[in-house]
């Protein structure tokens, strides 16, 4: 299935060797090691067979890992790659003969050089998702650079001024969907706040044998093309048996009257997707080894094109320690939802000499990715059944006034609140006690060079909050938001590009999301995320920018404020300014909104400990706000990370100048 790993002479092995895949079996034989992967001695598939040849159950296929490369010089070659994830041969876009591509392991403080050669027949690019780097290194054709033409080589070179789990992917055409992606692990300069004995990268993705262009074309022609969970006579009868014919009919006609369906969970489903974990379909069963009692850090990346994953490991509780590359206060959960583009690091500590299933079901329950953590090869745990498929509710449409959660404006029944400024009262956060924190002047952080405390705040990139940035320097005054310049009121009218305007939006940060409510498990919510380290820019925002997430599912047109990228002006930010972005989701689907180059500090009520993110999922009819320090000049992409929404217009340029 895979070619042996091609590795250039410049690839350096990490000196400090982490026991990623190395484990001795009972007789003391080394089963397999990452060194073999990196040196390309054995192909990944062959290696798995070597490790557990006779232990593979009938019908299973050998699993594989993406190779890992570390150091500061990398050579990546993009080329077509024959793959077989589904039982049918297909062609992916691979990196160094692998899809997903190699995991890149960097060190905070290093300057990395990545030489990317495009052997594809079409232009390509690599974007470093979540990295705070100069705009021209960001890898977005049309904004950062021209793209990498066929046959050409582009040299990326940038300082690594942050740590954590990130990922990279093509930003050209729809090559993410065809497998041009990989993980990034950046070792922090400071010690990890929570120790662990072993770590694995778990990269989730969705694979289709069909061309992504044909998927988008099908969606444009029939937006529910991939939805085999529509309302039917058959499921009406079964639903009527449970809920009564009258209420079922009433509910269905209410949706049909709007030409909408509560069954719009995912635009592209398991009807065409096979869900992969580290490039392995479920039956290949990617496997990671552990010794009972060890603390295992799992670095999860949702690198899919269109799929929200709900991740859990039955039998193990997971301690979330990082979100989008930024350390958070540990939260113990049983399950969490990953928006497309998000990363989460969790630590698990399996005590028993038994196997556990890593289970990542698609939000629409049309399939799952799966892997196994086990103390011995050959062990596997049962794969749980998928949960019931969620349905959108009238609350997702912003219409249920009686059961508003997080609503802070009682007595507004029947009012059209979509145009209201809910900026101040809509958030649980009390800003009056938020003492401003000036960034440290310590030269320890390279990024801080050239920064002056007087008037120059924010014109040099702030460092990522870390142990080193928390040392003192907390100053500032409260209630500085009196100078806040509100956003232009945004009036959204329904039209060809805007199908629905919720009459009520609300904060839904403390909700786990559709399909995860009351499932008996502890599910992570955005309200649970509290940054481990105090934010580095304590200034209050001086300006608000309100953006509505809009779309017309039936026409498959998506955008911000009713406009597609091609007809919208860039969002202009002044270098050094701090703004609040307010997102209001006027659609009935989640949108993972990704801002390149700048952190998105989610206002989830944690005040100075609001979590730093690069991708923020906005639930249907939700109002979310976050602060952005425009500290890095450039033309940045800002978009929904659902691939086909982005290509249908849900994209803006953010210019920092």
């Amino acid at each position, binding site marked *: 299935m895979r070619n042996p790993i091609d590795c250039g002479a410049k690839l350096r092995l990490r000196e400090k060797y982490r026991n990623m895949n190395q484990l001795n079996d009972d007789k003391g034989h080394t089963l397999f090691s990452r060194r073999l992967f990196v040196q390309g001695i054995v192909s990944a598939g062959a290696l798995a067979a070597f490790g557990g040849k006779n232990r593979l159950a009938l019908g299973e296929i050998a699993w594989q890992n993406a190779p890992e490369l570390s150091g500061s010089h990398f050579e990546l070659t993009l080329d077509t790659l024959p793959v077989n994830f589904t039982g049918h041969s297909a062609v992916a876009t691979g990196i160094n003969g692998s899809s997903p591509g190699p995991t890149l392991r960097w060190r905070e403080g290093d300057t990395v050089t990545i030489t990317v050669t495009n052997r594809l027949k079409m232009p390509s690019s690599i974007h470093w998702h979540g990295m705070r780097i100069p705009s021209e290194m960001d890898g977005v*054709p*049309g*904004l950062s*650079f*021209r*793209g990498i033409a066929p046959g050409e080589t582009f040299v990326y070179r940038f300082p690594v001024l942050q740590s954590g789990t990130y990922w990279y992917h093509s*930003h050209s055409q729809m090559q993410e969907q065809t497998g041009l992606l990989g993980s990034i692990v950046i070792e922090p300069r400071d010690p990890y706040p929570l120790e662990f004995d072993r770590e694995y990268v778990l990269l989730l993705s969705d694979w289709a044998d069909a061309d992504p262009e044909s998927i988008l*074309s099908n969606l*444009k*022609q*029939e937006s529910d*093309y991939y939805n085999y969970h*529509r309302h*039917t*006579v*058959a499921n009406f009868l079964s639903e009527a048996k449970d809920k009564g014919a009258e209420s079922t009919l009433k509910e269905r*006609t209410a949706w*049909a*009257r*709007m*030409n909408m369906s509560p069954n719009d969970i995912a635009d592209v489903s398991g009807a065409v997707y096979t869900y992969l974990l580290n490039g392995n379909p479920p039956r290949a069963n990617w496997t990671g080894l552990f010794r009972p009692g060890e603390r295992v850090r799992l670095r999860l990346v949702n690198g899919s094109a269109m799929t929200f994953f709900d991740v859990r490991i039955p039998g193990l509780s997971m301690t979330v320690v990082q979100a989008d590359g930024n350390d958070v206060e540990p939260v113990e959960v049983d399950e969490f939802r990953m928006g497309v583009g998000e990363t989460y690091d969790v630590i698990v500590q399996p005590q028993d000499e038994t196997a556990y299933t890593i289970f990542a079901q698609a939000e629409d329950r049309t399939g799952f990715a799966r892997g196994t953590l086990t103390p011995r090869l050959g062990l596997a745990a049962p794969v749980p059944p998928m949960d019931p498929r969620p349905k959108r509710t009238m609350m997702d449409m912003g219409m249920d006034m009686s059961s508003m959660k997080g609503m802070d404006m009682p007595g507004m029944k029947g009012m059209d609140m979509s145009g209201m400024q809910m900026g101040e009262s809509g958030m649980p956060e009390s800003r009056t006690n938020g003492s401003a924190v000036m960034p440290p002047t310590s030269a320890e952080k390279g990024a801080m060079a050239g920064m002056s405390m007087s008037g120059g705040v924010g014109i040099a990139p702030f460092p990522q909050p870390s142990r080193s940035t928390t040392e003192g320097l907390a100053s500032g005054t409260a209630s500085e938001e009196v100078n806040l310049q509100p*956003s*232009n009121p*945004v*009036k*959204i*009218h*329904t*039209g*060809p*590009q*805007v*199908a629905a305007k919720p009459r009520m939006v609300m904060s839904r940060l403390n909700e786990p999301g559709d399909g995860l409510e009351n499932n008996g498990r502890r599910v992570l919510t955005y309200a649970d995320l509290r940054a481990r380290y105090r934010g580095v820019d304590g200034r209050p925002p001086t300006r608000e*920018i309100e*953006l509505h997430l809009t779309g*017309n599912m*039936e*026409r498959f*047109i998506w955008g*911000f*404020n*009713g*406009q*597609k*990228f*091609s007809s*919208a*002006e860039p*969002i*202009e930010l*002044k*270098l050094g300014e701090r703004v609040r972005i307010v997102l209001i989701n006027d659609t009935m689907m989640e949108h993972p909104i990704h801002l390149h180059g700048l952190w998105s500090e989610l206002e989830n009520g944690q005040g100075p400990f609001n979590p730093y993110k690069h991708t923020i999922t906005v639930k249907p009819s939700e109002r979310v706000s976050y602060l952005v320090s425009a500290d890095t*000049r*450039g033309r940045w*992409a800002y*978009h929904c990370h659902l691939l086909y929404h982005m*290509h249908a217009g849900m*994209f803006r340029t953010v*210019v920092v*100048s």
Partner: protein
Amino acid sequence: MRISFLRPSLAGAVALLAWLFGLPPARSARAQSSMHAPPGPAPQTHTEWPPAVDDNMVFRHVLFDQLEGRTTGSGNQLRWDGQGWVGTDMNRLWIKSEGFAGANGVSDGDHEALYDRPIPHTRYFDAQAGVRADVDSNPTRLWAALGVEGLAPYFFNIEPTFYIRDSGRVAGRINGSWDLFVTQRWVVQPHAELNFYSKDDPARQTGSGLSDIDAGIRLRYEVTRKINPYLGWAYDGKYGNSALYTRQSGEATGNSSFVFGLRVWY
């Protein structure tokens, strides 16, 4: 002379067209319009670079909703009713074609080429304008066409079109259908098409008023989304003077038929 007949309605027609097609194009609220660029060198824009995303891609669609044999007691006919489009989200060229082919040649041959654009401030309706050519075994007629096609509430497909040709003759057609999903793959589709004319046209056997109805109900199976074999029943009836002309040529004015065919799109 004829021009003067049209003149009073000209201004209204222009206004209607302007509204339907949103000319000049209706602009949505520009939220960022007041966010003036701050002074200082802006990051360079390279106009020769490709756009970051191309959200004005050209897509195409071809659908044969009916591609079927109809059997009645008296004989068999082939019926087609298809449409296709090519274009972007906001500008499309539509082609529609329908007709019967049987022992007596081709009848009811109707072919249209229309410019299509979503109607501003509506969510699911497009305005369409262009030409209709009646080309079959009967004398050819050319019409100007102006219509609307879209989704009425409850996912009801509706397609009313207004036609006009020289000498002030007007015609109208309304097409409607609805998909009832019995299961995820078995779909019942009731469908009806009604034609109206302002004046008799004996050469084409169409009379004034309601001229004909073609209605049916089809049960299709979605083998894939794009390949749907079906069975059904159809009724094809003539009314008013159309019925008279049809009777005069010795044909039945109402046919009830069993239909079988293939609904395909790509």
